[in-house]
């Protein structure tokens, strides 16, 4: 098994782990963390695909750097919304999970 | 000769890392754990940097390695102080 394949499978597993975290977590901050796991798993998958032919390919690398910055922007906005929601409702969870929706 | 020095110093460095990790797992409270972690790990990192320095192709790389070590010392020292102060405040009930 070659290096890129190993990292691609790791990336695939990270996407699965991240999705499980997104579904199973109740605390919204934890969901944002899981969302970041999914994103970085996909980046690893894409980066491994770029390294597959032997030499490293700069185009996926540039796309991934763009992706990392966009993921940070989305996380910052999501975290801001989580804090605002918790301040307004007193709870860090969505209303339908408090069993009183 | 250089390879031998690298093996020797990185082994010493790894020994300190292991010692620091054992201390981290076995010591009873936050303060002694911090003590084990910061002191042993910083020393271990220094030895590993020294070991890798024997493989460096230029003096510039050696300088960079030790700049990294210095920054780690600064960061780890500051962080352990801050964590310890927070733990102390928590123990004394603020």
């Amino acid at each position, binding site marked *: 098994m070659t290096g890129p394949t190993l990292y691609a499978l790791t990336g695939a597993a990270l996407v699965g782990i991240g999705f499980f975290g997104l579904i199973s977590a109740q605390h919204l*901050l934890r969901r944002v963390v899981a969302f970041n796991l999914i994103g970085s798993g996909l980046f690893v998958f894409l980066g491994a695909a770029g390294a597959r032919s032997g030499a490293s390919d700069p185009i996926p690398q540039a796309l991934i750097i763009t992706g990392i*910055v966009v993921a940070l922007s989305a996380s910052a906005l999501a975290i801001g919304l989580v804090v605002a929601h918790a301040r307004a409702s007193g709870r860090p969870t969505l209303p339908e999970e408090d069993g009183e929706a | 000769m250089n390879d031998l020095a690298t093996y020797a110093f990185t082994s010493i460095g790894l020994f300190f890392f292991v010692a620091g990790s054992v201390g981290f797992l076995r010591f009873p409270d936050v303060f002694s754990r911090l003590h084990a972690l910061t002191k042993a790990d910083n020393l271990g990192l220094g030895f590993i940097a020294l070991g890798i320095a024997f493989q460096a192709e230029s003096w510039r790389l050696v300088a960079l390695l030790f700049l990294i070590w210095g920054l780690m010392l600064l960061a780890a020292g500051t962080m352990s102080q801050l964590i310890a102060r927070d733990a102390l405040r928590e123990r004394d009930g603020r």
Partner: protein
Amino acid sequence: MTLVLDLTLCALILAVALATVLGGGVFRAIVFFIVYGLLLSVAWVRLDAVDVALAEAAIGAGLTGVLFLSAFGKLSRIGAEAEPPAAGIRALLPAALACAGLTGALAWAWFALPVPERPAPDLATALPRAGIENPVTAVLLNFRAWDTLLESIVLLAALIGVWMLARDEDWHDRFGLPQHVRPGGVMANFGRLLPPVGVLVGVYLVYVGADRPGGAFQGGTVLAAVGLVAALAGLLRPPRVTQIVWRMGLVAGPLVFLIAGIVGAILGAGFLTLPEPIAGSAIFVIEIALVASIAVTLAFLVIGPPEQGHRE
């Protein structure tokens, strides 16, 4: 030998990712996530993508970690940091199976995809015309300039979104929460020692980005982090929304990028296409403006909307 290294690294990454998702407590999840980001940046070095490794360590692990930790602090202050009891194993089993299926499908896709023969042959012929040596920077600022222009606008949009969450009565205050630092204490001294080195590293990363790993995003992130450390140490008071200089800094990058794109169109090369003779110097100017905007935007995103008067 290297296979052993790769296997160990991948096993560690997966174990830490599992601990992030399954471990008890939000704080623990955040700490594991930061460790995960640092391990991942080692993986990027192994994949021969040093530019990505720098971005992942600085942005993915560093700034995202600070964002999570400061949000956790804000939630703790209003007593919303504890987790509700998790659903039982039986309820989560279908989710676990579905996620395993997703991983399986991605793995299948990997083996089903055709293996490319050569990495982007078009790029190798185009690179000498890009005006810079580092192929990743060339792609970011020249060949796929559209992506980078829109990315800088996404950053700005996210910042405006975060600002919209500020309360009306806080709007004219300084950004972030008030910081209490003991004068002459450890943090204050750290804040004095680190910025000179940090500024040097940040500027160096931007400077070498033209022909070696580094670039506007990595360097800008380091500069943003320097600003944050200085603000946390109480040495730099965060600015206000109403200060025009900082708002100019926010839009400088996208604006210069757009102007360069329009100049390209006027010179007949097409919008956002840099003509070969001026490509090198145009990229240099765009990069400086971009670094300023990236550093200011990231620092403001992390420090959050003004809430100086916020007391719970």
